[in-house]
């Protein structure tokens, strides 16, 4: 008897379960699936003309190039910094550790406009804390590419750390200790043992950072100056084109960005189940 009812509870699905399933599907359909689909549809309303037209405009090509360049620099910085701080956080007794790890998450919940403002207040050429001195030394940060890089690094900073820290904790310290006792120094241990064992965590973090970096808008808008053909990035192009009634151009650029973003999450979700085992 007990055995029977045991099976029934798992197998039977009441009408409420179907209702919930339906509700969830409808909700996600109207909130995400249909709107995203429409962007693709609008992009190809006139065939591929709007996409090819986009790639013939040198300013747009420059904007796309700048976006990719900034994103790559930001990802490299955040990967090196993120892996380093993750190892320090997990493996060492740090002063102020209790406060450090929540602070590292702060960029995720700060408004991008506030991020931009904060960078202007410190690195702004005229009134910033360090800006005028840097400008005198020949470094312009705000309204130039370095400012865009800083803003992008800021907003994507926690992503690698959030992926790597749990993996490091999970892997534990024993493999590293074994390597040390077999004669490996700190650097050899890192390259041969630590890095291979956290590889997947790092890859997820990089993919997520890449998506975030390519798509940053608000913080970049504040610090970039948004100069056509110079400091205008792809996301700024979307806004500009839409507001200037070039909707096909806006949809086409948005479609390119959305394509990369969706490709990133599909890559992550395809990789993740393997690693979970």
């Amino acid at each position, binding site marked *: 008897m007990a055995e029977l009812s045991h099976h029934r509870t798992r197998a039977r699905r009441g009408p409420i379960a179907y209702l*919930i399933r339906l509700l969830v599907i409808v909700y996600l359909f109207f909130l*995400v699936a249909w*709107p995203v689909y429409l962007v693709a549809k*609008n992009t190809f309303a006139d065939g591929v003309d709007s996409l090819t037209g986009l790639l013939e405009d040198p300013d747009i090509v420059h904007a796309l190039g700048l976006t990719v360049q900034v994103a790559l620099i930001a990802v490299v910085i955040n990967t090196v*910094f993120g892996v380093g701080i993750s190892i320090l956080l997990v493996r060492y007794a740090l002063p102020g550790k209790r406060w450090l790890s929540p602070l590292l998450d702060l960029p995720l*919940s700060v*408004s991008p406009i*506030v991020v931009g403002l904060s960078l202007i207040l410190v690195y702004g050429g005229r009134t910033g804390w360090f800006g005028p001195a840097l400008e005198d030394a020949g470094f312009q940060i705000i309204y130039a590419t370095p400012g865009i890089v800083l803003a992008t690094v800021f907003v994507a900073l926690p992503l690698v750390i959030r992926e790597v820290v749990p993996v490091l904790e999970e892997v534990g310290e024993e493999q590293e200790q074994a390597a040390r006792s077999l004669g490996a120094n700190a650097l050899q241990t890192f390259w041969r043992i630590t890095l291979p064992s956290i590889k997947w965590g790092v890859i997820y973090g990089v993919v997520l950072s890449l998506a*975030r970096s390519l*798509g940053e808008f608000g913080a970049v808008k504040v610090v970039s100056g948004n100069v056509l053909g110079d400091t205008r990035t792809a996301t700024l192009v979307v806004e500009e084109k839409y507001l200037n009634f070039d909707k096909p151009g806006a949809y086409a650029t948005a479609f390119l960005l959305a394509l990369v973003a969706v490709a990133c999450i599909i890559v992550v979700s395809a990789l993740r189940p393997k690693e979970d085992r």
Partner: protein
Amino acid sequence: MTATALTTDRPAVSRRPIRHGRPLTWVSGVGFGVTMMWFSLLVLIPLAAVVATAAAGGWSNFWDAVTSEQTLAAIELTVGTAFGVTVVNVFMGTLIAWVLVRDRFFGKRVLEVLIDIPFALPTIVAGLVLLALYGPITPIGVDIANTRGAVFLAFQFVTLPFVVRTVQPVLAELDRDVEEAAMSLGASRFTVFRRIILPSLTPAIAAGAALSFARGVSEYGSLVLFSGNLPMKTEVASVRILSSIENDNLDSAAAVATILLVISFIVLVVVDTLQRRLVRRG
């Protein structure tokens, strides 16, 4: 020393204390210094500059800046909408997590990808995406562009993943034997949910809600094209800060930004506390 019989004068053998990592060596100490310097230059000092700038103008200037009619309306709209959106997320997010963990049907993996799209999509694109269905060219006759409905919907879109992704792993870890035990003792499905499942999920739901609230309060990009940024009507706090920056009024920008930072910080502390509780429960 003479090893005598089992003595009791030694310190009691307690369980081995949890170790909090090894002490910093010379090399790792330098590494720590460099990373902290970088983190300070990039994040801590700039955020401190926001608060310092707001404070430098004195209390009355700060108060004037944040209580001007237009700013107050923006803050009210932002916080109010973020709150409402979070309430919806608590309900829908938990349901979605439940479906992803417990339900089984063809195409469930598509839902998984849909959940992550708002997180990965550039916010400006998110605005455009919503405009395509709920804007002037709507195929379904629902044009809410430039209304408060647009603000609500945009927040709803960008905050979608938070509750789902915090609740999902906790739900997946729940011991189903406990639920079956409760059912075998005569509890109804509803009672099992209310008395057994919900209490275990509460910290995760709360953490997800806090993150969703923080994200809503700080949202900017998805509103640019969709909400019209009409003063007193659809203008949110971030837009308010941006227009102050564009008018070269950094002091009042910093004042409003400080309010947002305080909210982010409180949320962070709440989430951190809740996550510690989650970890302790194992």
